[in-house]
Every structure is written in C-alpha cells, then in structure tokens.
C-alpha cells in the first residue's frame, strides 16, 4: 500500500467537520503532513490549506482563507506537495496578498525556481556573523543600538506611537558606510489598517523604493489565518532576493502581534493545552522559524535584515508576544509613551532597548574607536539621570544632591538633543557622536568611567578645543 504520489491531485468531497479554521476530511488515504490542499467553495472561490494531522483514512486541514461560505460539500484537492511559490526577479515591484495572489492587477508570477515556503533553515555552520554597520541616520539607533546587516531587530511599540514613521525613516535612510548599495525592501503587512498600508505605500513611492520592493499584504479585514502564510511568503521571496540575486534586503514585518493572535486562534481550535495567556507552548519555536530567516551566509553577497514591528498588548513587556520575540531577536527598540508625550521623536527609550550585534559593527575601521564606549557611557549617565528624575518627583529637585541634579539635567538635554530629531533628519554617525560628546561634557570628566582615558583625551570637547 503506497498511497503517496498517485493521490496527488485527488479531489475529495468528504468533509465531515468544519471548526473554525480547521476541517476534517474523511476517506483520504495517506495525505502528506503539511501537504497543500485547495478547497473550492460553492461560489467558486478557491482557498488554500495545509494538512495539520494526517491519519490512514482522514486528514485534519487548516485553511488559510475566509471560512465564510465553507460547507460540507466543498471540494478538497490534495496537491501532493508542500507549499511552494515561484520565484524570479520579476517579483520586484509587485504586490501580493497573503496567499501569493497578485493584488496589482498583473498576472500570476511564473518563476524559474519553486521554493518551499514553510521550512527554510540556514545551517548555523554556514552563517556569516553580521558585522557591517548600517547608518540609519537616527541617533538613538546608530549611536546606542546600532543595526548591522543581517540582524533581526524589532520595534516594540504601542497603539498610537509612531513606529510606522520610524520604520519608514529607517527604510528611507539606511545605508552602509562607504557603499552606495541601496536596500531592497520586502514589506509584509499582517492585520494592519488600510491607512497604515497606504502610508507605507506613499512613502515607498515618493522615495522610489517601490521599484526595489515587494509587498505581501494581509490587511485588517483579510482572513486572519492567512497571517500564518504571509510572513513566510514574504521571507521566501526575501531569501531569494538576498541569496540568489545577491541583494541586501530589509524586510519589515508588521504587526507581529496580529500574527501571534492568528497562531493562538488555530491553537485554540485544535484544543491544545496553552502555555501562557492562551498562546501555544510552541510559539517560541514558531516565531524562531520566522525571525531566524534573517542573516548572512558565508560566500554569498546578499543579506537579510529583519525589522519586525509589534504592538505590545496592554503595554506589558512580559506578555508572551514581546517576551518570546525578545528571546529570539538580536535586541529590540522600545518606544515609550512618556517620551512621545514630551514631544520627542523617535520616542525610543534607550534603557530597555538593545542591539546585541552592535559590538560587531562599530569601532575603529567600522565607525569610530570611541563609539562603543560612548554608547556605554550614555547608557550609564541616562540611567542615573532617570533615577534622579524619579527621586525628584518624590522629594523635589531641591532635595537632590548636586551630582544628582547634574545627571537630571543631562537626562533632559539628552532626550531633547540626542534622541529627538526630525523625521527627515538624516544624521551621519560623526554628527551623532559629536552630540553625544557635547552632552557628556556636562558631566565631570572623572565620572566618564566607561570611556578609556585615551578616548577622553582624543574626543572630549574640552581637549578638542584645546587642540584647536
């Protein structure tokens, strides 16, 4: 009994049960695990699904499209293969939905290459550790949380904060120092509003990035379960552009919170035992199969830099979505409502933010020898300043010691001059470091203990003025 290939293309009309996004088809002999099926609804529309659980005589299917109109007499075709998409350089400039159907009125892509969408794992031994500094022109990123090519660095945000504006600024301004290569942008929308999508589209149009971009869209009113597919399709395209066509790709995935909610709803439909807050125990591993698709490969030119955006449910950073993301990504940029209220843009709170790969991308020969130390000193001084500010809220500024007052002033100035900048302001790294040094010179020189004496002598404004 070898019911494998011959069954490919077999059509069944034996749907026994439909429960949320799940469908049980009986009488199926040996459906492949993860095999793609096409379900034809009574009205003729076709949606795709994959096999989640397969028995000798039946299969449980997860469908990705709208399930309204789905009935027991739907025709289910088992394709005999896992989900693959066609790839070619014609994809650049195109727009698709979450199931890879064109939304731009152009025909379905025909590609030379058909690649699996779900499983793509870079052999860790073949990875090249990312180390090329990306100048985003945003001081709080470049100066303190530098992004490098091949990194995955998410933005943790909340509703109403300008994460989209910031991501668009990053996409617009990013360059690698000393090279003129521009990034191709792969944009994947999951559950975002039309108006947000229109913002990105306009942005990309105005800057000409649209001609170097691919969009995969699942907007707020699109089928929720399709959100499971959308990022994987986007990343399959991304990998092709990077590792077959040697491009440097920045992939923006937004909003990962919508993705995780889709994952949860499938898990609930499957009646799985949840881990925390109803989210499945395998969410860490599932997210890893998305985020880990960034990186660089030894001997290949291109790179995949990933910038996922997620809105933190209830502003709680210990919520499973930001928590598990932080456990996988190489740092995080955290937006703060407090800074936003003060009118600071971008409202990135540096203290809980982190770029783990910064150390590999900065320093002499890359940015500047004092870069890492300056960053460490800014962290320390700002933390002191915030502590002093908290204290002054309790005992008043007069109760502060002179030292505390100095740090408080530092924190205020730091927010106004360093973090704060224009949406169209593109600061070179030298400028960012210059502002940093001006601020650090508000503090006694002896307290700059995270900076080596050599670098103080070389870069501290006091000595530079003397040298002039």
């Amino acid at each position, binding site marked *: 009994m070898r019911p494998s290939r011959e069954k490919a293309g077999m059509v069944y009309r034996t749907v026994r049960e439909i429960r949320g996004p799940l469908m049980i088809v009986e009488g199926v002999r040996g459906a492949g695990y993860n095999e793609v099926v096409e379900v034809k609804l009574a009205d003729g529309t076709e949606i795709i699904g994959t096999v*989640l659980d397969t028995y000798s005589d039946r299969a449980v299917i997860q469908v990705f499209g709208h399930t309204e109109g789905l009935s027991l007499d739907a025709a289910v075709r088992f394709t005999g293969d896992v989900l693959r998409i066609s790839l070619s350089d014609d994809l650049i400039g195109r727009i698709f939905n979450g199931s890879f159907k064109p939304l731009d009125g152009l025909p379905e892509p025909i590609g030379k290459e058909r690649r699996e969408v779900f499983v793509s794992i870079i052999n860790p031994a073949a990875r090249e550790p990312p180390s090329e500094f990306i100048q985003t022109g945003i001081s709080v990123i470049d100066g303190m949380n530098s992004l490098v090519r091949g990194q995955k660095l998410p933005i943790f945000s909340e509703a109403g904060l300008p994460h989209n504006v910031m991501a668009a600024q990053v996409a617009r301004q990013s360059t690698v120092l000393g090279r003129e290569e521009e990034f191709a942008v792969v944009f994947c929308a999951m559950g975002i509003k039309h108006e947000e999508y229109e913002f990105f589209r306009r942005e990309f149009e105005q800057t000409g990035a649209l001609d170097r971009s691919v969009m995969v869209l699942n907007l707020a009113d699109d089928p929720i379960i399709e959100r499971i597919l959308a990022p994987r399709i986007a990343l399959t395209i991304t990998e092709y552009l990077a590792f077959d066509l040697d491009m440097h790709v920045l992939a923006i995935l937004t909003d990962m919170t919508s993705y995780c909610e889709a994952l949860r709803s499938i898990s609930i439909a499957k009646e799985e035992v949840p881990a925390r807050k109803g989210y499945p125990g395998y969410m860490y591993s599932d997210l890893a199969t998305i985020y880990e698709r960034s990186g660089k490969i030894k001997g290949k030119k291109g790179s995949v830099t990933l910038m996922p955006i997620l809105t933190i449910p209830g502003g709680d950073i210990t919520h499973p979505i930001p928590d598990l993301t932080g456990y996988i990504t190489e740092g995080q940029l955290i937006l703060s409502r407090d800074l936003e209220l003060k009118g600071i843009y971008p409202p990135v709170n540096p203290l809980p933010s982190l770029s783990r790969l910064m150390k590999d991308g900065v320093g002499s020969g890359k940015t500047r020898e004092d870069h890492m130390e300056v960053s460490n000193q800014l962290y320390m001084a700002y933390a002191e300043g915030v502590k002093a500010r908290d204290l002054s809220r309790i005992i008043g500024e007069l109760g502060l010691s002179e030292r505390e007052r100095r740090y408080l002033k530092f924190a205020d100035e730091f927010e106004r001059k360093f973090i704060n900048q224009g949406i169209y302001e593109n600061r070179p790294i030298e400028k960012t470091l210059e502002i940093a040094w001006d601020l650090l010179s508000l503090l006694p020189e002896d307290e700059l*203990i995270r900076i080596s004496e050599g670098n103080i002598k070389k870069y501290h404004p006091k000595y530079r003025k003397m040298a002039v």
Partner: protein
Amino acid sequence: MIREGVIRRINGSLIIAEGLPDAKIGDVAYIGGQRLIGEVVKISGNEVDLQCYEDTSGLRPGEPVVNTGKPLVAELGPGLVGEIFDGLERSELELWRLTGPFIKKGYRIAPLRRDKKWHFIPRIKVGDRVTEGDILGIVRETSVVEHRILTPVGINGVVERIEEGDFRVEEPIAEIRLPSGEKREITMVQVWPVRIPRPYKRRLPVTDPLFTGQRVIDMFFPVAKGGTAAIPGGFGSGKTITLHQIAKWSDADIVIYIGCGERGNEMAEVITNFPQLEDPRTGKKLIERAIFIANVSNLPVSAREASVYMGVTIAEYLRDQGYHVAVIIDSTSRWAEALRDLSGRLEEIPAEEGYPAYLAERIAGIYERAGKVVALGGADRVGSVTIMGAVSPPGGDFSEPVTSTTIRYVGSLWALDTELAYRRHFPAINWLRSFTKYVGLLDEFWGRYDPNWKIYRERALEVLEEASRLEEIARVIGEKALPDEQRLILLVSEIIREGYLVQHAFHEVDTYCPPEKQVEILKVIIGFYDLARPLIEAGVPVDRLRELRSVMELLRLKEKKTLEEIMEDSARLKTELESLKAEYEVKAA
C-alpha cells in the same frame, strides 16, 4: 524480530506506527521513504509512538517505519574536538559542504570522519592484561587534547595485538582476547547510548573551583569543577555572553558548548571566533579544546531534546579519559519546551504551564550527570564534568516551573537582573539573589594568592548588602539627606560595583581577570574603605573623597595590565587621603 512497520498517523513531530511488536522505548527508527530519524517514546497495544527528529513535512501514513532495535547513541573517538554537530551528532560543517548552506533533511552522515587517519601510539604492550577503562594508547587530536583511547566498557582481557601507526577510526588498532577465549578487535571509535550515564569507579567530593576569569563568579559565586550552576534571566540580561566568557576563559580542559534552541548567529559567532582566540593559560587556540553542538531554534524542536544528552555523553567520555570538562547548555528552557511539546502531542496530563509532571525528574537527571569521578580502569584517573545551564524564564519570572525546579538542583545560581542589564551593569549577576554551595572550596584556591582574601570578600558583601538597604531609603529621602558615614557606604558600594563587579566582556584587558589581579583589586578597594572611615569621622565630607582623582581611579584598576600599576595607584590613593586628613586636622586645630 519484526523491524518494519507502517505509519498510521503524523501529527507534527509525533508519528504513530503499527506493526512493530518488538519495539522498545528508546529504539531508534528510520521513518518513511526519506528515512528520517526518530525514537520510540510510547507503546500502547499495537501502536507505537515515535518522536521524529527531523521535519516531517511530506511524510504520509502508509510509509514504512524501520526499527533499528538500538537506542540513540553518541559516537565517540578522535575527531570530536573542534567540530560543530547538530543534536544527532551530524557534523554541520560536513553537511554544509555536502548539501549547501540550507539544511536538507533525511541526510545521514557518520558523526566522526571516516577518511581521516590518526596517529595511534600504544601505551601498553602485547600480553598486557587490560580492564574496561584502561588506556590502550593515545592520539594527538589537537595540540591541546591528547585523545586517550580507552578499553571499551564491558571488555577485559589480554592484549593479543596492538601497534603504532596511522589508522582510520574504524580500523582495528588492537585485539583483545576475552576470558571466554574469544578475540575482539578494538577500533578507535565506540558508541554509547546518550540517555544512560557512563559508568565510573566512584564519585569524589568536588574540591576545586572552575576558574573563569570573571570576578563576580570567581570571588563571590564560584562553581566547582564537577559541580553545577544555572544562570536564569530574562531576554537580553546576559546569559549567553556570560556563558561564552566561561567557554572562552575557564580553566576546564575541554569545553562542550550546546546551543540548544538559541540563535544561529550566536553559534556562528563562537565558531568564527574560537579559531582566533587564545587560551590565556596555554596560549593555544580555543578551538583546539572546544566541541559545539548547535541545535539552533529553527531546527526541529524534537532534536533539542536529544542534543543535551548527546553533549553530556561526549563530556562523560572525555571525563573518563581524565579531563575536566565544562558543559554549557544555552538554554535548558528550550530543551524543556521540547519536552512539553512532545508531552502535549502524546496527550499526557500536563502539570504546571503545560509542562509534563516528570519535568523535575528530567532536569535533575541532567544535572546529576555532573560530578568529579575516578574513572574506570586500573590507574586512578580523575576527571570531572561541570554543567552550567542558561534558563530563560518567560517574562523574566523566576517562579515559573523550569527556573524554580532548576534552582533546586544546582550548586550555584547566577541570578541575572534586568534592572542591572538596563544600566549596562554586566555581568548583570544580582549579588543579593545569587548563591553558591561551593564557598568552602575557595579557601585553598584564594589562600594561595592572599591569606586575607576571606576578609575582603566578606567585607565587600557586607557593604553591598548594607548599601542596598540604604539605597531603599535614599530612594525616598534622597542621598543628600543621609549622614556621611552612610554615604560613604554608598560610595564604597558604587566602587565595588563599578570597579569590581562590572566586567565588560569585550574590553581588551578586562575580558579575563587573572586570580592575583582579582584579589589585589579587592584588597585596594577594601583598603580604601578602611582608610576613609576615620576621615569621615574626622569630619571630611564624602563629596571631598569623591572629588579625589585617585578615588575615581579605583574604578579603573581593572583596566590595568599589571599588578605594579595597580599598586602604584593604591600608593597614590594613600598619599591623597593622607594629605586630605592633614588638611582637616589643621582645620580642626
């Protein structure tokens, strides 16, 4: 024995098969036409449940399952050192060469290279009697590791033939006549079931700390060679970097680094850096004493479960050769999630947060494989396995099942603190929440460098504790409102924290701090405290102390390359304090 059955159901990594009446729990089977590797995990009636270690996409009910009847084993022999394996001991370097940069499933290669020849030098002669565990001969595997070929467990007899020469791992290097008269050819490769601890003659009490070159660990919260430690902390709090530091600088003979369900780039970084970094004690490249197991987060979850046992088994094998082996697991939480995943698919009744009821037993089972032992064999060869595991608590909450269970079974706890990490106080090991059961071992170790080490350590801990209490108060009333004696404690605690506990992993000098320097710095800092107290009593304001250049220099002692420089700074400090004292005596008079 019936070896071939048929798949009935596939649910992710769980395969249910029929027609394998002779299956035993733990048997390895080849699943489907692609011959994916799996292990029998449950038997009920004529159904056998298997956990598949590779991606099961495309697998169909009706495909065959072939039971090997053998358990999952580690292959042990020359060629382990410097390798990077996946959780099933496939060389990822070799897979990369054979199949390109993306992982292809169902690909099987022998763990140890079959084509390479190793120079074998016998250590015994024909006619010698050997028992299990005796060294037959050696192979110089790297300039650091002498691979000692052991008489396999279960073999005793008389050497009939043994010769020096260049051999492949599968070629016989000796022949032993067993008591039964049967002759057994011995090769340089052996296998051992990963889930069964390797036997030894007896356990020894641990006596030496594993020196790591990291001050907060070595001076305050050491782990023993043969002991266990856990390092829990929320994301970004510094687990991986701390463990990397230990892998780089600790005085273990061999380091086994198990990347279990963590980032690919982190593994890439160690594999790329280790061939360049030098061991501060031997001057040899670190790669010559390291073995990597890289079961990263996007590889199939099920294989994470096996990867930890694989690494520990390799460690025990090297221990049996008389080495001190450090096993690093990053992260045990990802391993526990693999247990949870399988348990859920088997529809077992979950205990807390979906984890199976046997979680504690499994965690203990891993840490129990650490220890210092006398190995099998005639000579009393001593070796040890030290196990250090990262724990990644969801939401940074230490009361969750994996963290709270792990804390019960380890000898040292390095509790990471997100608040410290936000301030870039690294390693962010919280000195109030961490513990060690190995303080008793420190006497001998630190006594070698300074007879008064214990006083410095205790005073430092006292200051830190007192300061944290004072900080609570200062948070409400402001530091300024505290009396100067108390503000001095805050100043000294700041110096201890910034000048001693903080140790930047990427600082050229301070990444590794030798023992004599560790004691010296602490001595100078505590010395400062002793000199400063009478000054404060004499009315010198704390702010005057803070303004002294040499006091701020205390924060930089760790960056100094030599002890002389530290002593010079200390002398300068004394002079400055004395002139300050003189100034106030004049004022008072």
